[in-house]
């Protein structure tokens, strides 16, 4: 399974990422998730979220999740980008691509990845007014 994990302080260029998609002729499904900063957090209006990460552990924990995905589903490739630092409302903080032969496994693996990330990957957020 191809893995591409990027932590970046720059905006996520989704169109460029989509245009760089690579897959073999056996693959029939690509599922994407964009997690976007919303304008409210716990009922209060915010302008941005500041993301902090324990970077080497983030990489370690994402790779443990990728290991589990690789055992459970026939995934050809995952690309994941998470922003760090300040991310404004309406901008994506997370972008995930999962490529598989059929759609059910792409949806399952993508949801599993995000669910597990939210349990184990050491990234924290601070809403900014």
């Amino acid at each position, binding site marked *: 399974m191809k893995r591409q994990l990027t932590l970046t302080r720059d905006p996520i260029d989704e169109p460029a990422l989509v245009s760089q998609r690579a897959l073999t002729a056996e693959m029939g499904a690509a599922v994407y998730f964009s*997690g976007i900063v919303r304008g409210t957090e716990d009922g209060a209006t915010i302008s941005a979220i500041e*993301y*902090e*990460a*324990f970077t*080497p*552990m*983030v*990489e*370690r*924990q994402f790779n443990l999740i990728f290991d589990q995905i690789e055992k459970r589903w026939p995934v050809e490739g995952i690309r994941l980008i*998470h922003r760090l630092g300040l991310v404004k409302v309406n901008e994506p*903080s*997370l972008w995930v691509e999962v490529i598989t032969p059929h759609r059910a496994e792409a949806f399952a693996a993508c949801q599993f990845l*995000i669910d597990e*990330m*939210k*349990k*184990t*990957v*050491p*990234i*924290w*957020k*601070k809403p900014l007014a």
Partner: protein
Amino acid sequence: MTIRVQFWSYFKELTGCAHLTEELPEGSTVDELLKRLHARHPKLAAFQNSTFIAVGLDYQGRSHVLRAGDEVSLFPPVQGG
């Protein structure tokens, strides 16, 4: 033995500290380290039921035996995405 401790997210504000080093007897566990830190930082102790513990880059429980040079990270629940 010397153990390096890192705090993340609002645990840095609770302790007023990003990292510190602690001298512990050989064979000490994470639990012994935590008790010492909690005694010094009551605000951190108040979050002990929602404290995540990593040694190096892996999660560990309180009974985990520390070794000289270990780096212990303490942080609140993670919130990626």
